[in-house]
């Protein structure tokens, strides 16, 4: 007596239910207006940062002392089309410097987050899954690392050697990975308790096979999903470092050092310090809008409300 077909007919499933959680999160996030606004802003900025400096003839570090302190367009009398956002105290074009600064800032933000994600999640997964000794060791290191505030670590290391972009990325990544380790560990612990892991063990699968084939794909996408918010956090942190002189050294422009130089001229040529501030505000708002929309989407999908 072979009972061929499954008994109850497969219920008609709406396309939404057929996708993996990651796709559902993306779909949910994309549908939100705040994401669209954020993404639009980010695209405009990225276009500006990557393409405009290439096509424009002016070199961001070239100084034209005679044309310094030119106000931005439509402000004061001396504004000029060549410098839409005006020039700084050494006659360098502010728009270009801001865009180059943005390029460095975003690059540092993204690289640091990737470094934090890879190191943090790897250690988090291992300590979450293996448990006992490895878990306590890794967790103690994370606690130690977390109790050194990021700014102190940055100051200690960058204060001595001459800060370069890789050094900054390394320092910020070093200071940030414990947060990812903790999140990955708790997610791995939750996943480990799920029945299908017991099922895999019974089939004879080794720990490594379970981590790589099952735990990682289930745990990592939601964490990666929320990393966008961290890019914004690192960007603002990098500009703080630049402001106190520990960011990338002149002549390379970054938000931090432009604002720091411009601070002196805030009274008479306020735009030198304000323009990078506005750019930073603009970028961070776009990243935060996107990030929070994605975070809300992730929370909804994971809680099954989507």
């Amino acid at each position: 007596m072979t009972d061929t077909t499954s008994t109850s007919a497969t219920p008609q499933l709406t396309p939404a239910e057929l996708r993996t959680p990651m796709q559902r999160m993306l779909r949910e996030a994309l549908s939100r207006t705040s994401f669209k606004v954020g993404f639009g802003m980010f695209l405009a900025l990225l276009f500006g940062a990557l393409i405009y400096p290439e096509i424009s003839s002016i070199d961001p570090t070239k100084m034209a002392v005679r044309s310094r302190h030119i106000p931005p367009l439509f402000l004061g009398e001396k504004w000029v089309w060549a410098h839409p956002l005006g020039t700084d105290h050494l006659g360098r074009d502010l728009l270009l410097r801001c865009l180059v600064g943005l390029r460095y800032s975003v690059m540092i933000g993204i690289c640091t987050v990737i470094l934090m994600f890879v190191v943090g999640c790897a250690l988090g997964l291992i300590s979450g899954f293996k448990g006992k000794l490895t878990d306590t060791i890794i967790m103690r290191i994370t606690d130690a690392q977390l109790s050194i505030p990021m700014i102190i670590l940055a100051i200690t290391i960058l204060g001595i050697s001459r800060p370069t972009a890789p050094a900054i990325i390394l320092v910020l990544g070093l200071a940030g990975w414990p947060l990812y380790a903790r999140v990955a560990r708790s997610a791995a612990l939750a996943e480990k308790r799920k029945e299908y892991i017991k099922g895999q063990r019974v089939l004879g699968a080794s720990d490594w096979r379970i981590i790589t084939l099952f735990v990682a794909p289930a745990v990592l996408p939601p964490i990666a999903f929320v990393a966008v918010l961290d890019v914004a956090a690192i960007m603002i942190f990098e500009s703080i470092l630049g402001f106190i002189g520990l960011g990338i050294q002149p002549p390379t422009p970054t938000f931090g050092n432009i604002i720091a130089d411009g601070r002196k001229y805030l009274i008479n040529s306020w735009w030198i310090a304000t323009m990078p501030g506005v750019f930073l505000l603009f970028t961070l708002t776009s990243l935060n809008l996107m990030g929070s929309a994605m975070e809300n989407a992730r929370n909804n999908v994971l809680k099954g409300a989507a």
Partner: protein
Amino acid sequence: MADNNSILSVRNLSVGLEKDPDARIIDDISFDLGGGKVLGLIGEAGSGKTVLARALINGIGSPLIYRGGDVHYQDKNILTIPINELTKIRGNSIGYIGSNPAGALDPTVPIGGQIVEKLRSVNPSMSRKQATDRALEVLTAVRIPSPEVRFHEYPFQFSGGMMQRVMIVDALVTNPSVLIADNITQALDVTVAAQIIRLIQDLRDQFSTAILFISSSLPVVETIADEVMVLQQGKIVEQATPKALITKPKHEYTKSLLSRLPRIWGKDIKGPDAVETPNLMSVEDVHRTYYVRKKGTFRDMNAVQAVRGVSLDIREGENIGVVGESGCGKSTLTRLLAWLEEPQTGTIKFNGQDLSALDQKELTKLRQQFQLLLQDPYSSLPSRMSVGRIIAEPLLIHGIAEGTKLKERVRAAMTEVGLDPSLENQLTVGLSAGQRQRINIARALVLEPKLMILDETLSSLDQVEQSKLFELFDKLQKTHGFTYIFISHDMALVRKVCHRVAVMYLGRIVELAENNTLFENPAHPYSRALLSAVPTLDVHPFKSDEYLLEGEPPSPVHIPPGCSYRTRCPLALEICNRIDPKATMLAGGGQVSCHLVDQDQQAQSEQAATVT
């Protein structure tokens, strides 16, 4: 319009969905609850029981919405009176007990404090002292041991049963005239549920409250209700006294409901007879203890003795059942049998090979011989793999087959378990529970094991799906000669399938007997107590008030000396306090560890001796 002595009358109550105007969760329900009467309401999962319960006291919010009807308590319509009047009635003259005791109170505040808070919120004039005394008084009434101490304890320090008693206190403390009990026994073990039902019956006279007793199982309602209503998809299809309902059901739905009830004792109910075959797996005196840090201490640990010396022989081709209530150690035993964990002492031999003596490679090889099927169909399968890939996984792990040969074996297994091969590259997300369990079976089947351990595998399926899978297991046993170990708390299922049954209590097998011996003539008092509490309409050979004493199983950390069941055993002897009874073999292959049985046997052997 309201019946003269009815305390709560419901007229044409309808509840729908905000988004969908014509959807009806509760469809035009009317009934009256007489003062001091118990009105039962039964309905399967999803029939709208909880929605009705909460709708009666204006307790529903988005996405649900009232679509008509009214609920009169004395002369007020609960659905329309202003909020400050409503709070005088709700939680005061109408009590409510939910189905999930563990989540009913704020975990960060002691239970006493929350009951007092409710009392003084419902009648502000009451002083804190009065409220505390009142709460303690009712706590004692529900027979919670040492109420003064437990008054200051937190919800997480209470077991399911105890917590439900606290919620009963919470409902009855204001001496309500109406009590709505929404499926209060659903989350509890059978013995604990039986005690709660008996408690409700005692309290009913003391508090003279009318009770709307809602449940998903008819046997539970039948013992307590004066009249019973049957709810199907939001409609009341029949209302009658329990006896009338059982003997002369009118509505089709009621009939089908009755037919699907589990049957244990009845004229044509018989369990399969034991098989005499060599042992496949033998478990000898296995112990497993967990060491958990004691709360708030630095280093000393609590020793949770999950399994305390279990010995069991499993014969080839046999279906052996392991039953017991939650906390008796059966899931730990399952993990030991599947060798997911190693016992501290004692050995498990499979085909004569001691598992602890094997190295990693040999162990993995031997694992093919015994497989574990998991309980929850939804979380036991990886969510991001196609059906074919899941079934192929064991073959890949053990490197048995690749390529086309792999595909063929996977397809063969799918056909054999009744899965349409076309599902091979579909995700599991859309499949039904039954289909998912078939994938689990297929996944084990490809390794051609000898032993299958079923950890509550069928308990989450509905009766129809369950009977289909029985046939499948039966067929596979005949074709492949599988041996099954059924681990379950569902006595009806074990009665129907298992040749032999082992009853576990507090980490130990108190009785092992053939199917019919255990169900008709169990030797151990705990077996009898367990059988007395089984919710079935059949005539119970053992009455619960005779065998089922108050109280809950002691915690596995502080196991009382002597026999661990003596604190709840009505037949406890003096010897039981001191000596822990050993397992004695009985005629017919069973074994029991109870002093009473030992003494009976001695008496019989002496008598036999004198006779010869």
